[in-house]
């Protein structure tokens, strides 16, 4: 035992840990500015620190057990996630038009479901190598694994997370060998589905948010308001930023969700182009490092797991930064590791714990 532990320690992935600590740390410093009232720590900062503690502990816990054991628990874990999603639909109260929190707002099962789905899909693609998927119909079974949780999240009316989960699952499509002609067909079906979603499922306010990306000037008050304010905040940051706690836009609270979805605009205003680029670079290194972990992994399950985990960080990041920069719709997707929010932070940390797990066991046999 101890010998193995020593080898594990030697192979420990310090890069990921250091990147994670830096990003989370900058996030908390930024949160302190975004919620700054007096010179005391705000409740949000305190709660976020608690979440970091819980997340860190959970991260160490998932690290300790060889990731190959998780393969066996993939299916039951996914079933638990699905059960939690169903429980949410049954028991959770509707808040702000969606219904996604359990235990008095302490747990958001859809966050957990993203991880459960990644583990389940990694197991599936490990056993059925994606390079052998050549026809669309081969996607039916993995598709089913993804569609059940996504469907349940759609029923919670949490469209942002549903879209996100679907995108994360779609990461695996990159490995399939389906000819491009089939994708043309799929896109037609996809467009038809999107149109019917638009017409029958999306609420008017959700339609408006999508229209606001195309033309943010449409309604500077309700949904376009956030996009415009975000852009003004980022713009007023300039090259070097206004300085910590000195952002006019931030300190005047022009951004309604500046500590959650728009946390990055606060950073961009106060630290400028240079600061934003540094933080984005940290994420970029983390993601590419994750892909390196996939390449160096010693088995298919580890590789597939690592790719899926990269997806769970990349897709919300792409949607969030795109929204903040005004090139994607305003859907409430927080920036992973950075935005205020306990459930999301804990799941991100657990996910990265899994990634480090794969990384440090690459030589062990």
């Amino acid at each position, binding site marked *: 035992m101890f010998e193995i532990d020593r080898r594990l320690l030697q192979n420990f992935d310090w890069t990921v840990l250091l990147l994670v600590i830096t990003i989370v740390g900058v996030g908390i410093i930024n949160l302190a500015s975004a919620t700054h009232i007096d010179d005391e720590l705000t409740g949000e900062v305190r709660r976020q620190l608690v979440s970091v503690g819980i997340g860190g502990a959970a991260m160490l816990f998932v690290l300790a057990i060889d990731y190959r054991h998780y393969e066996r628990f993939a299916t039951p874990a996914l079933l638990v996630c699905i059960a939690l999603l169903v429980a949410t639909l049954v028991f959770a109260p509707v808040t702000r038009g969606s219904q996604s929190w359990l235990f008095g707002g302490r747990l958001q099962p859809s966050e957990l479901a993203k991880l459960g789905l990644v583990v389940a899909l990694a197991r599936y693609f490990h056993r059925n190598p994606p*390079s052998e998927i050549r026809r669309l119909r081969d996607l039916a079974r993995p598709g089913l694994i993804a569609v059940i949780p996504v469907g349940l999240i759609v029923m919670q009316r949490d469209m942002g997370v549903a879209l996100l989960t679907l995108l994360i699952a779609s990461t695996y499509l*990159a490995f399939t060998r389906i000819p491009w002609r089939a994708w043309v067909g799929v896109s037609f079906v996809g467009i038809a589905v999107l149109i019917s979603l638009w017409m029958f499922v999306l609420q008017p306010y959700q339609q408006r948010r999508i229209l606001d990306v195309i033309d943010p000037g449409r*309604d500077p008050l309700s949904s376009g308001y956030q996009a415009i304010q975000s852009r*003004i905040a*980022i713009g007023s940051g300039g*090259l070097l930023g206004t300085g910590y706690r000195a952002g006019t836009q931030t300190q005047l609270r022009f951004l309604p969700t500046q500590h959650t979805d728009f946390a990055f605009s606060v950073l961009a205003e106060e630290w400028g182009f240079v600061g934003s680029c540094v933080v984005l670079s940290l994420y970029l290194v983390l993601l590419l490092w994750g892909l390196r972990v996939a390449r160096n992994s010693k088995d298919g399950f580890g590789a597939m797991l690592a790719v899926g985990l990269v997806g769970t960080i990349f897709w919300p990041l792409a949607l969030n930064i795109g929204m903040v920069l005004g*090139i994607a719709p305003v859907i409430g997707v927080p920036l992973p590791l950075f935005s205020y929010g306990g459930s999301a932070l804990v799941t991100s940390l657990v996910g990265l714990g899994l990634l480090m797990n794969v990384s440090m066991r690459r030589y062990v046999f």
Partner: protein
Amino acid sequence: MPVEEAGVGRLATGVDPSIVSRLVFIAAFIVLIFAIFGVRLFQLQVIQGEDLGNRARRNSVRTVHLEAPRGDIVDRFGRELATTRPAFGVTIMPAELREREKTFAALANLLDLDAGELAERVGFPKGRRRFQSVRIAKDLPYDSRTRVESHLYALPGVFTDVSPRRYYVGGSLAAHVLGYTGEIQVAQLQKRSFADYRSGDIVGQSGVEKRFESVLRGRAGGRNVVVDVAGRVDEVLDEVEATPGGTLVLTIDRDLQRVAEEAFLPDVIGGEEKRGAVVVLDPRNGDILALVSHPAFDPNSFAGGIDTATWKLLTESEGRPIQNRALAGQYPPGSTYKVFVAAAGLEEGAIHPDDRVFCPGSFKLGRRTYRCWKRGGHGSVNLHEALARSCDVYFYQLGLKLGIDRMAFFSNGFYLGRRTGIALGNESAGLIPTRAWKERHVGEVWLKGETVSASIGQGFNLTTPMQLAVAYAAIANGGTILRPRILLRQTGPDGVVEQGPGREALGKVPVSPENLAIITRALEAVVNEAGGTGARARIPGIRVAGKTGTAQVVHVKETDGLEDEEIPFKYRDHGWFAAFAPVEAPEIVVIALAEHGGHGGSAAGPIVNAVLSRYFKSSMPEAPPKSYEPPEPLESPAMPEPTESPEEAAQVVRN
């Protein structure tokens, strides 16, 4: 697949080379997305940022909410009932106050307020609250407004704004039709139907304002402006105009509505101010021409929030002005009900129009005596005379012949005891009792004596004025039950006109047109023949049909022997009058109810007369709309939750 065995270190990698090539592809995709982000950040922060950044350091960007003016509500001829006027307000932003004491003193002087109270209201907020403006006035009169505006340059931190405010042109005119507006309540904000509302938004809380909220609301706009240190607007960055709400054209006739309301005031009827309700309906299509519930309230007093004392007065005082008596008030129909008993009798063959009954002034059933309202008796009467003179004894006997369940069947056929489904909400269903109903709800068997009471519209029977209007409209139009309608058409802000709901027949009454004609002839006699009880509704040159009703509130014994004026107000009978005209081709139905008004003919008859006279008088040129005068500013902290509980304590009596 077994776990990869053996191999040493990197060489033993279990990852398929084809997967490695795709990993490179994913990496390239991620790098591309980050490159796009980098370019976009550069564009926002470095290229445009120079400009925006400088601006943000010296000035600040503010978003000004441009409230959408609520859509107008007009009557069927396009005359304004509710519109929007500008309201002038004043706010203070604590962070931008320069000389605190001086500013408060000056402002107090300008606005006629107490400087100390003003300072207290603003307080010394810290941190982010310094940037939250404190509202000092919501709706200033014109002269205060000009005074403040001319001194604004010397008052940094003081801001003025103009917002649209609901204005009900006629004050309390048609208040129960229009309803009122108020700030959205916390409970409403939680609901999905209010997902795109923000706290502080104005929303229709009752009547047409509530029912057609989505049409009237419009869409708020906004303006992003750059302001300098003194709060002056430097530059408008962008602006989206507010889209005003659509216009509603109601079926109401404003003149008729006003006449019907004024009929409750002392100078028209004489004596004291009445309480009650009027419904005026077009029996050809169900259009509501007027709907009155008196006493009423002035919805203007809700527009800027209402203080608790006023709210209490409206909801809890004895007259309960907030209640819509025409829809929610339930009263025994009294003799207006005899019409439906007569229709049942004719249709069932229980009586022939020529059959005569002798009325000695009372009727004995077992050991109990039931009196006719005319103590001396009516002598020998047939159906026509019994209706015209409202002989109780005739209907006691007819009711016993029919039995309670047959009477209920025909009453239900006239839509009594059922909601008419008018688009105003808060409607009561009334009550038409049956044997089964009593066993279920009272737990006792039906008594014969109760049938006697029911046959003259007393006992358990309860109707709303609106139900009687729909039922009498069916008599007038040859037997069709029409759903009463309030919306003629609506015009969107884009000018697109959308017609309101069409004529909607809810059913046919189970009575033949011949029998309806017999009843109509009797109703004409009520008004026009000697001995008829409804002579007060007579209009020269117009054939008016009608029926009086007097609903007893308490047992007869308690008021026996007293003259009308000696009976305490709350024990006095409710007076009904139901009428339609002209008999040859009816185009108007009027139902009037005078609560505790005494006898129907004398209490409610003059109201009907006033409405019919106005209707048949060739339309006069319209008086110009009342010129606008801003009301006193209402400075109230919050509007109490309106607890809409207009359940009328129905005074049920048993003879």
